């Protein structure tokens, strides 16, 4: 299955490892991601003041470009997903504003493209069972806590393809990869997002609450689908030992990294060197366990 793919800025730079892993593992399960030609920034935050139409121009431009390529646009960045999905819905539902956007970007677009998160496609278009069938190296005995953040869940009536309070799609994916998902209460709590720019101590407190809850539930690793969550969860742990006595860091994976590993792919370019909490010892252990 061929589908248009929007990488977004993060996956093109700091999240290159996430991007490489997504493309490789999607291809391995039959999802051929074709990068959208000449894409631009998604807009990065969905404008909260909706009458500022200009902010919708960038995502609308991406959607227009996607319309040339096919009926579905997928992305792995959860922020890009949130912005593109909501912009598309806004264009579908607001005729007057749609006309203004179209006039501005010189297009005639009414929301025809379907914006789908890559995890959503893996679940519904590929199927976790089909993925399980292709697993070469089951992540046996690995206890993984799945962390979803907010971008693919809220606002639920606009973006969610999963239960916004008790999501399961990542848990079901890691189970398909042979790992043991651990249930914990803070799967959908805020990671602190951009608060780190202003005051890292707030973000650290929020991240600690999430990771403490995950580790209390027995997690040896945390998996996420959001680049910003990965960054916050990963980076804050470096300082955490100073604030919280006896804290033991856990590696924070992108789901695509675990997918690539389990599918037996070459994982060298998955950006391991960018992790703040080194994930390589655990990866090594997994690879050895298999051989």
């Amino acid at each position, binding site marked *: 299955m061929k589908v248009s793919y929007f990488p977004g800025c993060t996956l093109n730079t700091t999240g290159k490892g996430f991007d490489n892993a997504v493309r490789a593992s999607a291809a391995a399960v039959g999802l051929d991601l074709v990068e959208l030609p000449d894409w631009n920034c998604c807009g990065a935050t969905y404008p909260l003041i909706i009458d500022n139409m200009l902010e919708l121009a960038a995502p609308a431009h991406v959607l227009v470009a996607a319309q040339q390529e096919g009926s579905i646009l997928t992305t792995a960045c959860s922020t890009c997903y949130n912005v593109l999905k909501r912009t598309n819905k806004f264009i579908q539902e607001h005729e007057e504003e749609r006309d203004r956007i179209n006039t501005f970007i010189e297009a005639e677009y009414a929301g025809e493209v379907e914006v789908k998160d890559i995890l959503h496609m893996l679940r519904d278009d590929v199927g976790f069972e089909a993925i399980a069938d292709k697993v070469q190296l089951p992540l046996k005995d690995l206890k993984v806590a799945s962390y979803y953040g907010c971008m693919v869940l809220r606002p639920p009536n606009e973006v969610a393809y999963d*239960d*916004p*309070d*008790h999501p399961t799609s990542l848990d079901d994916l890691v189970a398909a990869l042979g790992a043991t998902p651990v249930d914990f*209460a803070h799967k959908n709590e805020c990671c602190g997002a951009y608060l780190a720019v202003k005051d890292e101590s707030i973000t650290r407190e929020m991240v600690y609450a999430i990771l403490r*809850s995950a580790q*209390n539930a027995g997690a040896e690793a945390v998996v996420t689908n959001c680049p910003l969550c990965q960054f916050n969860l990963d980076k804050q742990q470096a300082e955490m030992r100073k604030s919280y006595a006896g804290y033991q860091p856990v590696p924070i994976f992108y789901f695509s990294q675990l997918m690539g590993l389990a599918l037996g792919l070459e994982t060298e370019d998955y950006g391991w060197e960018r992790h703040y909490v080194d994930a390589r010892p655990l990866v090594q252990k997994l690879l050895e366990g298999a051989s």
Partner: protein
Amino acid sequence: MKRIGIFVCHCGNNIAGTLDIDRVVEAIREFPEVVYAIDYKYMCSDPGQQLIREHILEDQLDAVIVAACSPSMHETTFRRTAEAAGINPYQTEIANIREQASWVHQKQQEAATNKAIETIRTIVAKAHYNQSLMPFYLPLVKRSLVIGGGIAGMQAALDIADAGYPVVLVEKADRLGGRMAELSGLYLDSDAAADPLGQKIKAVTHHPNIQVITQAAITEVGGYVGNFTVQIEQRTASPADQDPAGELVPYSFDIGAIVVATGYDLYDKKNLGEYGGGRYPDVIDGLQLEEMLRPDGPTGGRIVRPSDGKVPKEMVWVQCAGSRDPELHKPYCSKVCCMYVAKQSMAYKQQVPDGQATVFYIDIRSQGKDYEEYVQRAMEEHDVLYIRGKASKVFQENGHVTVWGVDTLTGLPLEVEADLVVLATAIVPRADAQELGQRLRVGTDEHGFLSEAHPKLRPVESLTAGVFLAGAAHFPKDIPETVAQASGAASKVLSLFSQRQMVQEPTIAFVDPELCSGCGLCIPACPYDARSMHEWQHIAVVNTALCQGCGACAMVCPNKACRVRNLTQGQILSMMEAYL
């Protein structure tokens, strides 16, 4: 030849301030069949009506036209006036020269005067063809149906039965009592709920005028006010039986009036994912706690954690769980929660004096006699901790159900590690209320509650004549309010039953059987379901009780077989002719 008298009203300055009354009276005297015309300051006043009566006799009038305000104001008044002087009331007509002339053309006095004259001219043409009519008298079945055997239904049934009329009380469950039977106690009332309820059930069961049919459902409702026909099906099997349907016993009743008292459900706590409703055993709803608190309940009245049976040392109540939340759940206030939470938290503190009771609330709504004092007692005498702020999340960790919330008075986020959390979930109508509403032709609002006829002035009537509302089927309400509404509904039934017969205005549609071809076009045209085909004559017939005389059928009838009495097509044409 008729002898028509016309009475022109000044309505103070309302009409006379704009119209040249002298010119009007002078002009209308010349109209055909008009034998008398006069004006007066206030025709509706006693001397005004006396003037009409005197001239009916003096001038031997057989038709009266009052040129005055809208017929919706005083048509009935003047028809009675004419009737008192011996004229058939349907020979009295109103010519509206106030709303349709003086009021709307205040700056064009001459044109307004002309318009008034022409208006009266058309009414004179109409009056020429008016017939003397008699009202219809329809039979009235003085038996009422009450749907729902909770406190609302039982109260309505008792009030009607005590007045001497038979009542059929239909209940879905296998026992009377409804939701009230699930409660442990009543706020403001130290007695257990079972005592006052038991007395009501006994009174209903033993009442010679009440026939109780339990395990039953309404399957069909036909007819109209005073003459409903209701089909009921009763299951004979006990709920414990293998086959839940069992044998179905049909009943059929002729019914004059219906009271709907189907009660409420709680909004399913599974919808409240943010509070872990339906997910964590120690997150329960208000009725689950009532079950525990009931002396005859499974725990013998003791509050224990469902997960391990331990006594909770820390309890949290979350008010407005699903209520007042237009974005995700129900926008309305469920009204009873503030009070029952105070009751439950006090009951908990009495059982576990060293336990901590915390209530998260948005506002306390305690409008009722002694209600506010009751809530204050929970706070002050029982040390229940009330925190003004909504709980944001409930999750289970380390054997606790932890509540996150905010204290909006201090502005600080809050975490309470509780043993048991009670969600005061929203009150919603019964799942099948909408279907029953359709069967009864009673509307429901966007949430499924049955709609009243007028939010202020007709709160116990539905828009369907003869169908009345009681209790939480209409909107969340507590027991005293429910009982009051049920008695209100019963008194509406009784005032209907106090009539000897049902009176229907004769100015409604009729079908000329010689002209009707049986095309059936009038049936869908009727907005009141008053038209049907005759069983074997293949002509359309009018249901006299349902017809409102709107004339929609007369408009669609290609043969002019459908006519409205005293407003026939011939009359309308002659009015137009007179005008042109």
